[in-house]
């Protein structure tokens, strides 16, 4: 879809929420989406928090595409699309999704220190799934980490998910790849391209 197609489907613009754990490439994926929005002709804003929160904590960023974007941040029930690079973080962010918003989840767990030290328990998959379904039926699970490891570049699970999102939004893959190419060192491009298509082609198994 081009900007007109997207504005037809999302008349008030698109609010993305990206969430993951420090080191998962949440910021790179956010930069790609911001740049992509501008290249499609939208006004864009991308907001994130740096600093202390990154030391093993969760990383959240907001990207908004629209005719004119004012607030850089969104709140409860306002995200059209949630891209979660880790399962627990998907759960933590789900209150921010619009009823029946689109959610793409990396089927991957990074155990927080509160769990490894025995203070709390990591929720079971079924429980995560049930809880998410209370908010939206539009949940797509992607084995982003496995796919990234299969192509020999475990760090690229973020790009796998961007590929999956590209398919769901029916955006021209070449347009997205051009933006990715502009954001990474050239020597990593072929890995990222493989990761991107791995995600794009993978969304047949809706969990």
């Amino acid at each position, binding site marked *: 879809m081009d900007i007109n197609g997207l504005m037809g489907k999302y008349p008030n613009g698109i609010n993305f929420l990206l969430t993951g754990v420090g080191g998962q490439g949440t910021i790179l994926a956010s930069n790609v989406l911001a740049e992509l929005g501008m290249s499609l002709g939208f006004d864009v*804003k991308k907001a*994130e*928090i740096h600093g202390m929160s990154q*030391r093993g904590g969760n990383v959240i960023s907001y990207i908004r595409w629209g005719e004119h974007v*004012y607030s850089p941040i*969104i*709140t409860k029930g306002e995200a059209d699309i949630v891209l979660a690079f880790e399962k*627990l973080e998907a759960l933590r962010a789900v209150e921010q999704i619009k009823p029946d918003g689109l959610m793409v989840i990396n089927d991957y767990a990074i155990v927080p220190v*509160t769990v490894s030290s025995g203070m709390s328990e990591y929720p079971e998959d079924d429980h995560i799934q049930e809880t998410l379904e209370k908010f939206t039926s539009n949940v797509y699970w992607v084995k982003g980490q496995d796919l990234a490891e299969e192509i020999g570049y475990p760090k690229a699970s973020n790009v796998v998910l961007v590929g999956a999102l590209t398919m769901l939004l029916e955006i021209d893959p070449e347009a997205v790849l051009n933006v990715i190419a502009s954001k990474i060192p050239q020597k990593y491009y072929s890995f990222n391209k493989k990761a991107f298509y791995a995600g794009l082609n993978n969304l047949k198994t809706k969990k």
Partner: protein
Amino acid sequence: MKRILSGNEAVARGAWEAGCSVASGYPGTPSTEIMETFARYPNVYAEWATNEKVGLDVAIGAAYAGKRTLSTMKHVGLNVAADALFYVAMTGVEAGLVIVSADDPSMHSSQNEQDNRQFAKFSRIPCLDPADSQEARDFTIAAFDLSERFDTPVLLRMTTRVCHTSSPVEVTEQQQQIPEPGKYPRNPAKYVMIPANAHRRHPVIEERVSELSKFAENFPHNKIEYRKRDLGIITGGIAYQYAREVFPNASILKLGMVYPLPVEMVRSFCKSMENVIVLEELDPFIEDQVRLMGIELFKPQIKLNGDDAHTKSIFPITGELNPAVVRQSAEKAGLLETSVKKELSNLDIPIPARPPTLCPGCPHRSSFYVLSKLKVPVNGDIGCYTLGVAPPLSTIDTCGCMGASIGVAHGAAVAGDKERHVAVIGDSTFFHTGIPALINVAYNRSNVITIIMDNRVTGMTGHQDNPGTGFTLQNQATIELDIEKLVLACGIEKVLTVEAFQVDVIEKTLKKWLKEDGPAVLITREECALLPSARKRYLPLQVTDQCNGCTVCFRIGCPAILKSDQMDPKYHRPLAIIDQELCTGCEICAQVCPRDAILFRDQVIALRTSEEV
């Protein structure tokens, strides 16, 4: 040409385009990227100063010498630099001086959320408050012009959401011409603030505020957007975005300059509106000024805090705003119809927290493990090592601001506190404000034990160079400050440098010193585990079948040590397992394991070699 820039990148861009050629600052979230970006532009000098006060003095010297100069810091940095701020407000400058204060409403990465617009009023200098990246670039350029036109430093006040939000910015590719250095001013009446001269300068700066207020009437970045007249909103900074989002039909007086205010513009705007509110984050800074003009503001149906005159009546004084907070406050005040509540589900299961922690392989961990065993009071400081407060280490007892650890520990000691006090401070923080406090300990002979955690870099803000690293901000080789010699020169006779991962050496040393009297300094030295050079040495360790789930290794709080699904057959406790993706091989766990059930690096290598054979 449009580019997506963060607010911080846009400030750097604006400064460069304005012909600014000198910048000095100290790292601090959310300001750090301004200097990092500016340092990469051609024809500029940029440095990390040892602290914000030094940085501002440097910037002032450069501006006296006729170069447009930028000084950057986070909000609390301006407390450190306040002495310099107040004299340069008196002297004025030869070339433009812009001081950037990056405030942190909601304290995403700070100890308080002070509103530094107050500093502008306090020191009588103009304050610009951008609302997005385009304005960050434009206001920076405007600030340099304003600085020279009114012979004043200008405060460019940013907030986290402006600093770290990226949006399209129209930029030019040309840098304004940098002037050739002129003759350094020989003008003591203006630049030497002895009382006789300062007496004459004070009326000048009060007059300057009046002149600036008149100028503000036509300042292009103060503007009125007329829409419906039933509600007018006076706003500035990021709050403008929330005003547009929540009140799309309201008229808006958007103040680019929030101090001093354009009095006539404010009056005429208010006259043309049926109701007027002020929408701003944190302090009622604009609101107080508007009320002092005698203007009646909208009276809310329900006041947020009753009749408490010390706070705001509609919007919260604490925390950052967002569209939901603004909307809820407006509904409560009777400004908006209460929206039909969408049926939003709530999360009803507990979600394990993911708090920030010391990273796997962090060289600070060993000292905190030892301190947690010794149970002495630990006065902490600002940096990654503040995370020593988190369980299971739970070791930091106080932490206030940069450099506070040593002075606070000394205070407790001279007050006669019965326990022996320890101060914990990082390398960069020690250089920042720790040194005078350590001299004070030596001079006034308290028995404080100071641990300088030297991880060879300024860590928390993202690996900035400092006087201990051997490189400058612009990557020039330089001195590598010898902390041990410096400590000796401060008058501390008992000082020892150890490798930070040597748990037993740290424990023995501290236990010995606790029995002796007098001040002492332990320097624990090991580079941050996230530095590229440290990453090259990563070697994940392994747990052997000797593990019986005794839990000692869990007590070091390393994210790489997990409880496995396997239980010890005798005690039915989960056995330890090491995450091979996360472990760096620092060996702290191997050292504390009472059953030698975790292999050291050379054992892991030997095992792998034998497996390969």
